[in-house]
């Protein structure tokens, strides 16, 4: 893709080799064995813990902000030094008992509160985009793979066309041309619009090989309808592929949202988002490094966790697909 980067730049995170098209579908691994192997993998567990923490943080944002004492939109002029152009008072960007992660230079907004609320925005957009992409990718992939012929040709051409696009720059073009209302919904729609072919292509390939198998023939012979065969016979066999692709897609979308917000076409201020926080820290990086380091570290660790997790799950669910 990719912000692809077609990946111009941000999309890079989604790169790497993916599940091969038309590869033999491995038998479904037993759930308990996979779970046990997963728990023994320290990196995977650490990543899951971090992701769960961020999700909890996002869910409990109002509560956490009540405990810390400052809201994400509250200005605190007492925490910055007006004589020095608004640099936070105190060491490390004004960190202390009052403001846990310090404050923004200039207007003194609490960084902890903005991180917590930013997690909400980032996770909500990334997860919604993933769900929508997965739904579109699976449905179109199944239809193209199962019915073949003209239907397949049309869907495949559309997919090729979308994948030939430099997605990032088109997202920017679309978002910059659209009005600023409902940005979050628009972000999800635009990201999914350019994202679904990557999953659909793989689902299509595997469906094509699955529909030749004996159990599908048996179902056909016993009078099952196409819908029954697609959803009851073929779909369950695609579960592991879909899980892997989905986990690997989330970090890409987290990065894309942050990148678009960084460029000023994503989440509109004053709503906080991690990418947008980093963007507003650019003029201050030399005097107040904590301002970009904190959201930068949160974002990096989130993307890393999802990437590592996706990688590990892929290995666990069968070397065959890797």
């Amino acid at each position, binding site marked *: 893709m990719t912000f692809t980067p077609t990946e111009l730049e941000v999309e*890079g995170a989604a790169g790497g080799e993916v599940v091969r098209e038309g590869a033999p579908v491995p038998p479904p691994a037993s759930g308990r064995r996979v779970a046990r192997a997963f728990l023994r993998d320290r990196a995977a567990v650490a990543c899951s813990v971090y992701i769960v923490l961020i999700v909890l943080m996002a869910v409990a944002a109002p509560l956490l902000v009540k405990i810390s004492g400052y809201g994400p939109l509250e200005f605190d002029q007492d925490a910055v030094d007006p004589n020095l152009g608004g640099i936070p008072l105190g060491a490390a960007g004004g960190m202390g008992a009052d403001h846990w992660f310090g404050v923004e230079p200039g207007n003194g907004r609490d960084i902890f509160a903005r991180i917590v609320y930013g997690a909400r925005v980032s996770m909500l957009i990334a997860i919604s985009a993933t769900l929508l992409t997965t739904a579109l990718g699976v449905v179109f992939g199944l239809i193209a793979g199962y019915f073949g012929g003209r239907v397949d040709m049309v869907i495949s051409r559309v997919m090729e066309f979308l994948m030939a696009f430099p997605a990032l720059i088109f997202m920017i*073009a679309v978002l*910059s041309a659209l009005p600023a209302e409902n940005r979050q919904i628009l972000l999800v729609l635009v990201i999914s619009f350019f994202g679904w072919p990557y999953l659909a292509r793989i689902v299509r390939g595997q469906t094509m090989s699955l529909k030749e198998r004996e159990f599908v023939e048996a179902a056909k012979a016993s009078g099952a309808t196409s819908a029954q065969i697609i959803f009851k016979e073929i779909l369950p066999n695609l579960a592991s592929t879909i899980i892997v692709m989905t986990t690997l897609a989330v970090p890409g979308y987290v990065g894309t949202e942050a990148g678009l917000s960084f460029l000023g076409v994503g989440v509109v201020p004053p709503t906080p988002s991690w990418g947008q926080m980093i963007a507003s820290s650019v003029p201050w990086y030399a005097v107040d490094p904590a301002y970009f380091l904190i959201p930068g570290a949160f974002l990096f660790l989130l993307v890393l966790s999802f990437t590592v997790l996706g990688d590990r799950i892929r290995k666990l669910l069968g070397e065959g697909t890797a």
Partner: protein
Amino acid sequence: MIRFVANRVLGMLIVLFLVCLFTFVIFFALSPDPAVQICGKNCTPEAIDQIRANLGVDQPFWTQFGTFLSGLFAGRAYGTGPNAIDCAAPCLGYSFQSSQAVTDMIVQRLPVSATVAIGAAVLWLLAGVAGGLLSAVREGRFADRFIAGLTLTGMSIPNYVLALSLQFLLVVTLGWLPFPQAVPFSEDPLQWFQNFLMPWIVLAIGMAAVYTRLTRANVIETLQENYVRTARAKGLSPGLVWRRHALRPALTPIVTIFGMDFAGLLGGALITETVFGLNGIGKMAADSITKNDQPVIMGVTLLAAFLVVVGNMVVDLLYTAIDPRVRVGSSA
């Protein structure tokens, strides 16, 4: 072979046409009225209508699209009479905010973007292929796992975070590099080189990670092919097997993605150029977003799409020349 090439070129032209149409629809349907922008405040509805007529934006959609397409090949003029603005042959549009043709603006900034892209490409290709080969040779051992960790990190770090961190570390804290300043190469080659060093590294790290993984996977897969086993069984020396039987087929797929990635980068690295203040196409596009200068965004979008689509095709054709298996596969 000729039929194959003709097919590919035709397919590319169709995609390019659709890209133009799609882009035009986006900006036709969604962008604010340019006439209102030009007219500014204190504007009467009559004046707006007049400007609209001059620009041709009161015409129906297909007429406007036709004018736009012919502008791409033959140039066009905005407005009529003595005040008409001339836009020469590949006319990508006209920025009324900076009173300049978009094509000229792009051409002025192309050298910077090209320098960024070429330097980064050299770095990531070298690092990616070397890392991938090393991983493949040492599969499962310490070096392999270490590189795997590095690539995961490199893939996950957003490039603007990396850019700011590097700039803070190398410029502010350690003082190894001077603050970026725009200097031409002829004036101060050292400063010029130092300006581009960080953008090159930042862009290369994410890409190198992807290329390392790809190279590793390809090499390991190729080594399991039957013809490699045959070559080994014949008693060829390991070095010869590697060079002649494993590397070439393993590295050809890299060429494919490299073409696309490089072409995409030529169209401007928006984030990196912005963070480092390099006056290339990417920074121009990013600035135009803030200024809401639609013609420039549209022009850069078209350019980027054009580069990717053409790059894709060139690589496809090269690839066919290198690896005859593709030809057979595509005609089936």
